[in-house]
């Protein structure tokens, strides 16, 4: 159905100027061209330029010519401890945060689906966190984690538990980042799962109930397979977002303490600006770019998202 419309493009034409006729005939190209050209300019060109930058030593002083170093920056990746730490932290954050968000979001959706169907207002209230500016979320949690007058330590005190430095603590910093991220993004999984549950067909469940299938079996054999496409999209988008984590870390910990929350985005930022080494930053960026392209392409191909 989708493609069939193009055949009609020249079918019935009003008399018009030559330019209009030409435009009408090439409409399918003309309507798509601006977007394709803009995106080519904003993604492909920078990627090529970045490769060019990655094989140079670039001085922060624009008057100093770039110094060709060949694969030097890429070789550095192998022995750069900080890069390995950042890679590990990003992986850890992504796996833990997305897993927690997924289990929590799916669990809540399964439990509350029946009750929230008509409570649209309440549902939207629960969705607010994911729309908020990440910077506002970060300062909100900074306020909550504050060791001296923060709410969290007040709760710990009332419960008779030891007070913590939270985002400032070596062992708790990453947990603090993850909790803030879970607060902001669990609603996203929850929302998509609710949408998935709302579109489930009724008949298979009636049949299963007649056969006496337990609700546990119904979940595994019916709900989960039906939800699979929605779960795939939710996970893909969440993973891609988690890999680019920056704002929360920038405000809450600055990558510290002891590099425990230094993630790839933050490390690239530091290399480029604080250490003033854009060439090496470009090399790390290329690594991240290829990793995400491979990951997302594999995922999207597998899920046939482009259809």
């Amino acid at each position, binding site marked *: 159905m989708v493609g069939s*419309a193009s055949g009609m493009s020249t079918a019935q034409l009003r008399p018009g100027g030559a330019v209009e006729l030409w435009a009408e005939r090439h409409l399918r190209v003309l309507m798509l061209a601006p977007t394709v050209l803009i995106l080519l300019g*904003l993604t492909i060109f920078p990627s090529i330029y970045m490769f060019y930058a990655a094989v140079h030593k670039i001085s922060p002083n624009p008057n100093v010519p770039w110094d060709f170093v060949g694969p030097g920056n890429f070789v550095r990746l192998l022995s750069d401890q900080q890069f390995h730490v950042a890679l590990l932290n990003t992986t850890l954050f992504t796996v833990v945060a997305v897993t927690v968000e997924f289990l929590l979001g799916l669990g809540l959706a399964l*439990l509350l689906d029946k009750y929230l169907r008509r409570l649209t207002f309440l549902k939207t*209230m629960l969705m607010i966190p994911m729309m908020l500016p990440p910077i506002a979320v970060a300062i909100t949690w900074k306020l909550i984690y504050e060791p001296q*007058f923060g709410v969290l330590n007040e709760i710990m005190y009332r419960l008779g538990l030891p007070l913590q430095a939270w985002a400032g603590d070596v062992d708790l910093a990453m947990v603090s980042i993850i909790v803030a991220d879970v607060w902001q993004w669990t609603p996203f999984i929850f929302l998509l799962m609710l949408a998935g549950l709302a579109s489930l067909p009724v008949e298979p469940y009636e049949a299963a109930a007649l056969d006496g299938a337990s609700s546990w079996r119904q979940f595994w054999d019916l709900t989960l397979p039906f939800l699979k496409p929605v779960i795939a999209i939710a996970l893909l988008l969440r993973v891609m977002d988690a*890999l680019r984590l920056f704002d929360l870390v920038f405000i809450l910990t600055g990558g510290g303490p002891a590099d425990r929350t230094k993630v790839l985005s933050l490390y690239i930022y530091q290399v480029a600006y604080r250490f003033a080494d854009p060439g090496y*930053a470009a090399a790390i960026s290329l690594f991240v770019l290829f990793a995400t392209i491979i990951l997302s392409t594999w995922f999207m191909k597998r899920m046939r998202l482009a259809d």
Partner: protein
Amino acid sequence: MGIVSKIHVRSRFREMLVRLSAYVTIVVALVATLFPIYWIAANSFKFDIDIFAVPPEWVPRNPTLKHYDEAFIQRPFLRYALNSFLVAVGTTIVSVCFGTMAGYALARFSYPWQWRRQISFWILSTRMMPPIVSIIPLYLFFNYFDMLNTKSALIIAYTAFNLPFATWMMKSYFQDLPVELEEAAMVDGDTRWGAFLHVALPLARPGLAATAIFCLIISWNEFLLSLIITLTEQSQTLPIGIAGRVTQYNTYWGEISAAGFMACVPIVVFAFIVQKHLVRGLSLGAVKG
């Protein structure tokens, strides 16, 4: 009591338990969701001494607008907000205009060699690109053209991830429209472009509005690219202004609470306007809620 009614009573009891736990969960989830937002709002209305109070002051006892005055009158937060707004509007106009045309083309036209599928896929994959990887080339590029610290540079950079979003959103809305209406218009003598402009576009208006609002939100919230591109209050956006008041030596809690809360208010309003489109917007049109 017969065995049947015993089972009946037990299942009624179980159902009540499930219902009760569902309501308790809703309340807990609501509190967990809304407390942080309430807390930043509450602190923005406190005097500094009350912000630092131990135990914390759950409700501001002496509410004050002092920090709003500090942030928006004495410091340039109004200017930051205006910059955020202008950049968001500029990005949205560019993205929605071109994205709508591209989305329509991908939803309706056929292309040789499976290009329709390939191009859709490629556009989606540009959305997956982490912004950090484009900051180096963008920075060097804007530096070369002397465009650092301008709002136009921000609009160009933000378009890179809003345009794929708008294209995919609009593609999904156009795919929902029956093609017959456009065919009928063309039988009546309208051109292909005319059918798009006079038939498809008006029908897709709710989708268009939702897409525009999402673009506004995405741009309003953006931080990293703005951090790289902007230097002074001439172009700095609201998130940059807020982050700038969290320094190594001091965090201006009252000011950033006031500015942070104000940054959230329009977003909450928007969230309620687009509540019907949330699912589609957040899944780039992949899931139709």
